[in-house]
């Protein structure tokens, strides 16, 4: 009996994914990059892709991907990760290629690259981390900044008459024929994290089945630049952010020979 009990209590239920580097995080308290990294690393492990993956990091806090995920990583100029990933994938179609981009990177300076990569049906996966601000540069207004949100370059709050509206990339990219999978997830609660894992697995699966372009948008936090405590930042994601940026799957291709 005694032995059985010990076994029951020492059974490993939770372990670091093999593809996640064992280092201390440098991200701010309450930041979601660590969760996104873990979900990506778990998916890499799940499909056994660690030794055939090339990641493409972008500019911003996301660039430090290569300090945390134990795969080959190229660094792209600001916004150009989908173009760099295109160059990698065309040269090595047998490899697994993903980008990891923030919202300033993907939805402002890199809009052209992500739209055309999607439209070509480029067989890559985009992990898009949307925290409604430019984190690394000190919390400036992003194209995803919410109406009324105060940032260091919208000190009176974002006004649609001057700066337009927060851009909904998951919906926008879902309209393109080349997009095989587009979903928006969040990671503020365990339930959301389970759905996020499922979405990333699906997105990876799309690439492995050569179905075309796949993207998962993560609604994420930036407590430091939002001027919020981590707990309040989680609430903002589940609250006003999820209301404007609805969670869900916007496109899921069923077969590769679409059209």
């Amino acid at each position: 009996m005694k032995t059985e009990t010990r076994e029951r209590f020492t059974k490993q239920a939770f372990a670091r994914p093999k593809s996640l580097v064992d280092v201390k995080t440098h991200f701010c308290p309450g930041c979601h990059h660590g969760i996104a990294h873990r979900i990506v690393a778990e998916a890499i492990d799940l499909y056994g892709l660690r030794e055939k993956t090339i990641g493409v990091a972008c500019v911003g806090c996301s660039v430090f991907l290569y300090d945390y995920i134990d795969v080959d990583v190229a660094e792209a100029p600001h916004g150009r990760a989908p173009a760099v990933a295109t160059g990698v994938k065309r040269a090595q179609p047998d490899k697994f290629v993903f980008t990891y981009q923030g919202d300033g990177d993907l939805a402002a300076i890199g809009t052209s690259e992500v739209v055309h990569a999607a439209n070509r049906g480029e067989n890559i996966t985009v992990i898009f981390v949307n925290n409604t601000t430019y984190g690394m540069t000190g919390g400036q207004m992003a194209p995803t900044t919410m109406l009324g949100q105060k940032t260091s370059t919208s000190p009176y709050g974002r006004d649609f008459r001057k700066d337009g509206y927060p851009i909904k990339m998951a919906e926008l990219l879902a309209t393109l024929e080349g997009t095989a999978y587009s979903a928006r997830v969040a990671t503020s609660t365990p339930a959301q994290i389970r759905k996020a894992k499922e979405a990333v697995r699906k997105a990876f699966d799309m690439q492995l089945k050569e179905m075309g372009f796949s993207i998962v948008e993560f609604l994420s936090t930036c407590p430091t630049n939002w001027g919020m405590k981590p707990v309040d930042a989680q609430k903002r994601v589940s609250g006003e952010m999820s209301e404007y940026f609805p969670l869900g799957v916007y496109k899921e291709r069923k077969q590769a020979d679409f059209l």
Partner: protein
Amino acid sequence: MSLAETASRRLLMKGNEAICLGAIAAGCRFYYGYPITPQNDIPEYMSAHLPPIGGTFLQAESEVATINFILGTAASGKRVMTSSSGPGISLMQEGLSYMAGSELPAVIVNISRSGPGLGGIAPSQGDYLQAVKCGGHGGYKMPVLAPHSVQEMYSLTMLAFDLADKYRTPAMILGDAIVGQMKEPFEAVPYVPTVPLDKPWALTGCAGRHRQNVKSLYLKDNAIEVHNWKLHRKYLQMQAEEVRFEEYHLEGAKIAIVAFGTAARVSKTAIQWARKEGIAAGMLRPVTVFPFPAAQVDAVAKRGDVVLVIEMNTGQMLEDVRVSTTCHDKIRFLGKPCAMPTPEEIHREIRKLAGRAE
């Protein structure tokens, strides 16, 4: 056209097409580009001839995307090329800076057109400064080769791939509309690599090795300073080992022309005419404009009476000639922005400098 078919054959082709043959012979199987005059022969040729030999042609949505496709394929360890002209090359400068910083080899062809802005499509050498002085941010250099014949469009393209790999750097072919569009016979010699072709640094998935990165961001301690000195040493090595030039009738030359590309090609005719008249004219033709043949320029300046710089711009290489020698009083300039100087114009200038009657 397969590699075997191109080996040691005498062909009649456009300069732009010869670049494609040179690239394919050198093992380039990836070409990305965006349309712009006067270099469209290159993407058109590659779109037809790469797929049948298992290569990849992809037309990008912009030159910004193009250079980043290039970055990705270069990071994968494959030989890759793009071509464009002035305005498109400007859009590639961001990517070129990243590639220089990330030490990624690729060949970039600039069949340059004229003037700032949209300018014109007439031949010009107006992109010299952008090409050799560092067109993007951060103070990098790259080998820049200036062909003056269809033969060189072919052979210097092969050399550009080797230099790019040897130094892990982008390398540029700096041509213009004339050398790109003109047809003449050339010898399509087989490619013989002068550098090792394996690239252990490439991102191929970390099977059997530690993960590796291709990056240009260095934030910790003085890593960026160390990195900049490392890059600088490469540029010094290029200056020590890669200077290439042609000496044309320089024996006893009192009037030494310094010109590259099309301007040099035209100058040859004028020099022949002058020599027939007993004028001791010759030419030092930089084949590499970076690294620049500075010592050679200084030598001809010291030996002769006049150094006549001829360019299809208002005086860009002229700056390099000036810093190459202290004989500033001997330097003269004949410039023709946005047009080719004629042999007659150059001949007239030589006669004037030789003190001959009009």
